[in-house]
């Protein structure tokens, strides 16, 4: 896969197939979709992700002590330390995927661990939860391995070129795992 890193897209394959994209309109619609998603998840988990508050509903949310969580949930992603050292939080926010974090998982989860809530399961929802859990367990595992490989296989500037997407990948599991893994 080293070849991939050094291979720059050939001009022939770089083409716009169906004309210009209206970015403003696109972004407006994304906002709409994201809002819909957020509302759907709010209903599903009876949790106000935006204000980080439990709501009335079938799940009962409980706060847990910060110390009782594995440090996985609040330590910063590895790549931020390694590559984006100086860039910090702000550059990560530019990553787009962090907007994901903002929308679905509400703000600043890593700093906010004392608010992390635990829900007691309602037996009828087990399939839901199982779905969520398997989906997410996969990702941290992948995250562990991919940055390493990347470093092993690539040169310095390639790492930095790749880091935005890599760090955003790593960012993803943090957004909701604190809650969903608790059951």
């Amino acid at each position, binding site marked *: *896969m*080293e*070849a*991939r*890193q050094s*291979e*720059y*897209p*050939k001009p022939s*394959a*770089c*083409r*716009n*197939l*169906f*004309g*210009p*994209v*209206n*970015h403003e309109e*696109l*972004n407006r619609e*994304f906002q709409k*979709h*994201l809002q819909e*998603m957020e509302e759907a998840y709010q209903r599903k988990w009876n949790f106000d992700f935006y204000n980080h508050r439990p709501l009335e509903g079938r799940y009962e949310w409980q706060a847990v002590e910060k110390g009782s969580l594995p440090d996985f949930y609040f330590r910063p992603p590895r790549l931020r330390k390694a590559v984006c050292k100086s860039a910090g939080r702000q550059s990560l926010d*530019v*990553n*787009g*995927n962090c*907007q*994901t974090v903002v*929308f*679905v998982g509400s703000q600043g989860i890593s700093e906010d661990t004392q608010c992390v809530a635990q829900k007691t399961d309602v037996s009828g929802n087990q399939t839901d939860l199982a*779905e969520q859990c398997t*989906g997410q367990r996969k990702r941290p595992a*992948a995250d562990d*391995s*991919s940055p390493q*490989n*990347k470093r092993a*296989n690539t040169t310095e500037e390639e790492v930095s*070129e*790749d880091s*935005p*997407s*890599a760090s*955003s*990948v790593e960012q993803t599991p943090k957004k909701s795992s604190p809650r969903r893994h608790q059951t």
Partner: protein
Amino acid sequence: MEHQLLCCEVETIRRAYLDANLLNDRVLQTMLKAEETCSPSVSYFKCVQKEILPYMRKIVATWMLEVCEEQKCEEEVFPLAMNYLDRFLSFEPLKKSRLQLLGATCMFVASKMKETIPLTAEKLCIYTDNSIRPDELLQMELLLVNKLKWNLAAMTPHDFIEHFLTKMPLAEDTKQIIRKHAQTFVALCATDIKFISNPPSMIAAGSVVAAVQGLHLGNTNTFLSYQCLTHFLSQVIKCDPDCLRACQEQIESLLESSLRQAQQHSASSETKTVEDEADLSCTPTDVRDVNI
């Protein structure tokens, strides 16, 4: 013929060994059930989409294949990305101008699913001639995975090909050549809307039969004779042998028409001496090459 397309020894990619425990019959049965849950709607052009027409799918698919080839993606990335694309379009009307964004996003996610070092958002945006931005791609990713309900581990024909080959009493080098050719057919099928109604197992079986036929392997090996092989594979995937034959013939005619198109296109290109259409034995890699 391009030799580097067949030569797997020079790769530096680290892969896990095939796990024999994942190639047993129990897993195959589960896969045959699972493929139904991740199949797109056959009629989404009629029922869901207003702007997007079948020929546009072909355009975006051809571009996606070209990108996957150029970036040396794992073979499964392209068919998996097409599965995502079709499933998204099965329930979400989309503007024509966003089809390429969707295609890029599908490759982005499929690559993450299947590759050690996935394609980056930045690179994919360059491939769209910067008509989309990385942050848009990431937003689209979120939308895509939500619409697909996070069911991203869809079956691809490649998964089935491995099972078939495991069950076939053949030498490893024969398997390898069948695998290569069949994978080429699979990619070709993924670009064509006619095959959207066929489950991955059927595409896989049809591709293997077409590969064996094209390579004329049935002449020397009775197991690979047409009758015997179609009977065997139709039992493995539990379908009617006639359906399998129909699928295989459809694949062959798709190959033929692609070759004809390619011939017209590559009249100027010096290296492409596309053989007689009937001689499929060394054409698949060519087709793939020319088709992109």
